[in-house]
């Protein structure tokens, strides 16, 4: 506790002044900064080289490696595939984002559409069904940008069971290819790689801590 308390109002200027003095020798204006940034080396792999088949196979393999369960489906068979997944889950109460197609919501379940559901209402749900923005095969990662069909962040967090519908055309091979697909940076983004997990006790991997314990993915073969 050796620090001297000073007025926070002046801290901004003080810190920036310190930084300015310390970094006098570098870019002095915005164009210089932009060209210095543009010159940074980026020789790592930006684009994958796998065929479409192999890319999807890798995505499935990597998802499974991190304990996600994956099934494939054609676009036409998707509602039936979803219904089969729901039936096999043994769960009845679901939340869904408002943008999900109505034909996906099979009869016989309690569907709660998220038109500003309260946290308590979402907490009561046993499962959630959403789409995704992108899949990255290299790491088996699903990316959500939280659009109306992907749902608010809390929706894919509280229920213990998450069924994610991912189209093959959304799957890229490398992480940089996901960034290339973003027209502009997302306001919100969540990447999911397998179910929530911890290795804090003796480095033993335990799945299902606070986020969903079960991650199911239906890969829709829309391009092959």
């Amino acid at each position: 506790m050796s620090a001297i308390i000073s007025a926070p109002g002046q801290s901004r200027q003080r810190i920036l002044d310190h930084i300015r003095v310390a970094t006098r020798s570098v870019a002095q204006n915005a164009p210089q900064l932009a060209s210095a940034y543009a010159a940074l080396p980026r020789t790592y792999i930006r684009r994958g080289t796998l065929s479409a088949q192999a890319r999807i196979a890798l995505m499935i393999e990597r998802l499974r490696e991190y304990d996600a369960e994956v099934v494939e489906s054609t676009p036409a068979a998707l509602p039936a595939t979803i219904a089969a997944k729901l039936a096999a889950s043994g769960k009845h109460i679901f939340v869904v984002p408002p943008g999900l197609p109505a034909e996906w919501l099979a009869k016989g379940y309690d569907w709660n559409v998220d038109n500003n559901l309260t946290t308590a209402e979402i907490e009561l749900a046993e499962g959630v069904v959403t789409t995704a923005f992108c899949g990255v095969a290299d790491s088996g990662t699903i990316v959500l940008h939280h659009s109306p069909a992907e749902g608010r962040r809390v929706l894919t967090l509280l229920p213990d069971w998450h069924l994610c519908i991912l189209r093959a055309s959304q799957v890229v091979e490398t992480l940089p290819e996901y960034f290339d697909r973003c027209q502009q940076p997302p306001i919100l983004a969540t990447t999911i790689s397998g179910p929530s997990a911890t290795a804090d006790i003796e480095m033993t991997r335990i799945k299902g801590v606070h986020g969903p314990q079960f991650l199911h993915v239906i890969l829709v073969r829309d391009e092959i």
Partner: protein
Amino acid sequence: MTQVAANHPVLDPVFAATFPKAALPVLRNPQLRKNVAHAIDVIQAKRAKLVAEKTDWQELRSAASAIRAHAIENLGAYLEEFEIRCTAAGGIVHWAADAAQARQIILDILRQENANDVIKIKTMTSAEIQLNPFLLAAGVNVFETDLAEIILQLGEEEPSHIVVPALHINRSQVREIFSRRMGLKDLSDDPQALTAAARTYLRQKFLTIPTAISGANFLIAETGGVAVVESEGNGRMCLTLPRTMITLAGIEKVLPRFKDLEVMLQVLARSATGERMNPYNSLWTGVTPGDGPQNFHVVLLDNGRSSILSKPTERQTLKCIRCAACMNSCPVYRQTGGHAYGSVYPGPIGAILTPQLMQMHHAQSLPFASSLCGACYEVCPVKINIPEVLLELRSQVVNQERKDLARFFDPMYLGLRIANLLFARAWLLHSAQFLGRIGISFFTRKDGWIHSLPSVGGKWTQTRDLRGFPKQTFHEWWAARGPATDPALSKEAT
């Protein structure tokens, strides 16, 4: 605060013992050393496997290093850009020159919110500014939510690693802590059961406590966004459910563009936990109506960082993305664990960061807590040349010490001054060698080795043997050898 045991680790560099002293309790505790070595071995093996499968690993390292170097060299511009974008997106940006200011800013926000309770995502920066004891003293209940942090908080333990802070505690010790503090009599020591206990313990707190504190892995200048990298989902809970969110971030955490994450996320996950990608990454930008906290504060913390920036060799310390690969690869850390470093930042990065954050007034023993083997540099995903900085800091410490009058008769500095005299004058050196050979012969055993020396020499012989003086010095041998006898040599000479 409760009374702590005499050998309780002190992680405040101002009060901590020197590294060699603080390392002793660990070196004498076989259980602790076993726990540390086991955890390190597991992470190391996982990391090595996943780095090996990445054919462009060195290119990723080069890019990550260049991006981080560029970001900190242009820190002022990027911080201002971050502030403008974050503010435009509905966030409130605060600047804290030091730890005390950061603590006060956070407490003021909590008071405004009438918050008696707060949930926290693991943040080493908050440990750096000793936030928890401060908030507790101010009457705010702090609930850590990362599994390792819960173990430490309930067990009144200190972190010994920056990614897996409770790696020195094994399952039966966790069981003991949880059953005592959560009142669970029949808890087993199965990690699955222990994790489930933590989930139950926290669930209601996540759902009801309206204020949260987080750290930041990255600040994005381009968008004003903040990225948090995690595994358990406790981070997502804290980032999503509360009404108010306070993010504490070191000023060096800024990245120029969103796109830079394509490099940083790849190197961070592999380096930190040996995963292709950690289970969750969250990125948010200010306040989003209807989704997540509607009040968002960022506290930008300097606390010694801008002074590191002014030094050309040491500046690279600020490139660090806190992956802990350096401590996992360090032969010294493997033996001593984290507490010996007397700081929340242990291992090689701690050995250079801590004394610099203390502006070289404390923690001067840390730059010497290394064998300079260079393993840390080799694994560092942003290519911080830690041995180079260690050597620079060592020279600063030595320069501080040798000018210190109180150390005038310190055997080491006295010895070095005498050596300085001797080596400058041949006749003095020869006489010293003559006398030295007589003196040292009393300590030399029949096998030609010295097994123990008194005084400062004992520092060497405590752990190593020393060869005795040879019968002849090199100079004597040279003078006695006569003219060159090798025909090849004499031919060359003509």
